C-alpha cells in the first residue's frame, strides 16, 4: 500500500490492522465451531428443522440473469437488460411459461423505464432504442 506523506498521529494502516485482527479472530473461531459440528441453521429455519440442501442451480441462474443485466445495460439499454433479468429470475424460480413471462418482463421493464426517466427524471440508458423511447 502506498502511504502518502502525512503528519497525522494515527497511520491509515492502524485501523485496518485492528479490523484484520478482529476478522481473523472471529474467522478462526467460526472454522473451529464448524469443525466441531455447528453447521449453522438457514435463516428462518428453526434449529432441528429438516436440512435444506444448498440450491446452487437457482443461485446460478439468478446470478447469470444479474450478470447479463450488468453487461447488457449500457450496450443494449435498460429496457432489454431489465427484460432479460426479470425473465431469467422468474425462470430460476420455476416459471416455465416462456412467452407469458417474456410479455410480463417486457411490460415491467417498460413501465419502470418510463416512470423513472419521465416521472422522476432519472436517466437510464436507452441503448438501441435511442431516439425511439424518448
Amino acid at each position, binding site marked *: *500500500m502506498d502511504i502518502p506523506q502525512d503528519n497525522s*498521529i494515527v497511520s491509515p494502516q492502524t485501523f485496518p490492522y485492528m*479490523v484484520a485482527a478482529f476478522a481473523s479472530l472471529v474467522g478462526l473461531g467460526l472454522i473451529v*465451531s464448524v469443525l466441531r459440528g455447528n453447521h449453522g441453521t438457514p*435463516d428462518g429455519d428453526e434449529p432441528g428443522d429438516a436440512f435444506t440442501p444448498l440450491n446452487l442451480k437457482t443461485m446460478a441462474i439468478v446470478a447469470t440473469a*444479474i450478470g447479463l443485466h450488468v453487461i447488457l445495460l449500457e450496450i443494449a439499454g435498460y429496457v432489454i437488460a431489465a427484460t432479460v*433479468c426479470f425473465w431469467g429470475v422468474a425462470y430460476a*424460480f420455476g416459471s416455465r411459461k416462456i412467452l407469458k413471462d417474456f410479455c410480463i418482463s417486457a411490460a415491467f421493464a417498460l413501465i419502470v423505464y418510463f416512470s423513472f426517466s419521465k416521472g422522476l427524471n432519472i436517466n437510464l440508458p436507452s441503448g438501441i432504442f435511442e431516439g425511439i423511447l424518448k
Partner: protein
Amino acid sequence: MGNNFAMLLDGFQTVFTPTNLMFGLLGTFLGTLVGVLPGIGPALAIGLLLPITLTVNPTSALIMFAAIFYGAMYGGSTTSILLNTPGESGSVITALEGNKMAKAGRAGAALATAAIGSFVAGTIATLLLAFGAPVLAEFALTIQPAGYLSLIILAFATVGTLLGTSRLRGLVALSMGLVIGLIGADLQSGALRLTFGNLNAIDGIETVTVIVAIFALASRHTMIKASVLQINGKAWMSREDFKRSWKPWLRGTAIGFPLGVIPAGGSEVPTFLSYGVEKALSKNKDEFGKGAIEGVAGPEAANNANAAGVLVPMLALGLPTSATAAVVLVAFQSFNIQPGPMLFQTNPEIVWGLIASLFVGNFLLLVLNLPLIRFWVMLLKIPTHYLYAGITTFALLGAYALNNSTFDLQVALVIGVVGFLFRRFGVPITPLIIGAILGPLSELYFKRALQISQGDWHILIAGVFPKVIYGILFLVIIGPLVWNFKKQFAVKK
C-alpha cells in the same frame, strides 16, 4: 420542553402541504404493500426507493420514508395473521396467536387489534421520541470522541451478538461489514485501501448498494404454501376484545420502546418478551396457543414502539442499530445531512417534519388499512416467481441509478452471492450493514481521540462515560458468554 412542542407544531406545518401529504400517503401505501409482500421488509423498501432522493426534496422524501417505516409493520402483521408467513422478523410472534385466531374465524378481530395496537403504540412511542431525542442530543454534545467510540463498540457488540442464532456468526458478519467499510480512500490521509487498483473503488462501496444487494438479491425465496385465510365479516373488534387488548397495547409499548433506544438487537426480542408477559399475566392462559387476542395485541404494540425507539439513537447520536434505521441514516446522508447531536440545531425543519410525519403516517395507516384489507390480501396472490423477478430487477435499478455506473452493479452481484451464502448458513446480515456504516465512523472517532491525546491510547478509556459504556458492554455481552462457556464446560465434565 415547551420549545420542543412549538418545534413539533412547526413540523406539522411542514407536513401539511399538499405535496408532502401526497408523499406521506404514497409512503403508507408503498409501506403496507412491501410489508404484505413476503421477502421485502421496511429496510429493503426504503433502500429500493433511495434513488428518489436524487430528485425529490429532502423533507418530502423523508416524510415518505417515515410512512413506509410504519406502513411496512402494519403490512407485516397482515401476512402473519392471514398466512402464517411473517413478512418481517418483528411479526414472527404475531403469527403464533394471530393465525390461530384467523383459523377460528376471528381474523377480523386479530387484524383490528394489531392495527389499533400499532397505532396506539406508535403514537405514544413517537411522542417519547419527540421529547426524548432532543434531550439525548443535548447530552450527546458533551460526549468526547473516545466516548463516541465506546458507544459504537457497544452497538457493534449488541448487534453482532444478539441477532440470529449464533453469536460467532454475527461477529463474522460484523467483521465483513467493517472490511467493506475500509474500502476506498482514507478520509484523512487519502491513502487508498483495499481498492486493488480499481479507480471505481476509490470513493468506497456505496452503502445503498450493500443494503439493496444483501436484502433483495439474497432474500430467502420461500414459496408461499399455505392458503390465505378468509376474513369473515368486518375487520373490527368487539367491546370484549377491546377490553382484553388495551392493557397489552400499553405494556407492549412499555417493553418495546426502551429496548429500541438501547440497542438490544432487533425487534424479535421485545415482541418475544411482550408475548411472555401477556401469557404470564393473562386470565385466559388456556387460550394461549389457540388464539388469544392478548398474544397479538402485546407483541404488535411492542414491535411498533420498538421501531420508534430505534430512531432515538439514530437521530440523536447518528448511531443506527437496526437495518431499517441504517437505511434511514443513509437517506439522510444522501441529502448531505448527518444525523447526530447537531441535527436538531442544523436541520430543525427536516427532523421535526420527520417526527410529525410519523404521527401523520400512523394515523393515515389506521384509517386506510382496515378498510383496504381485502385489497392487500389480493396482492398475496401474485405468483412468487414474478414477485422475486420484480424485486431483483428493481433492486438493480436502485444500485445503478445512484452513480449511473455498472461498477456498483458488479459489487451488488458479488455482495448478493455473499448474502445468499450468509442466509443459507445462518449468518445474520444486519451486523454486516451496521459494520459497513459505522466502521468508517468508528475509525474517525478513534483517530480524533488519539489526536487529542497526541497518541496516548489511555484516552480511549479516560473519563467516566467510556468506563460506564465498557462496563455495560462487559455485563451484557461478555458476562453471559463466560457464564455459558462455564456451564457447557461443567456439562461436559
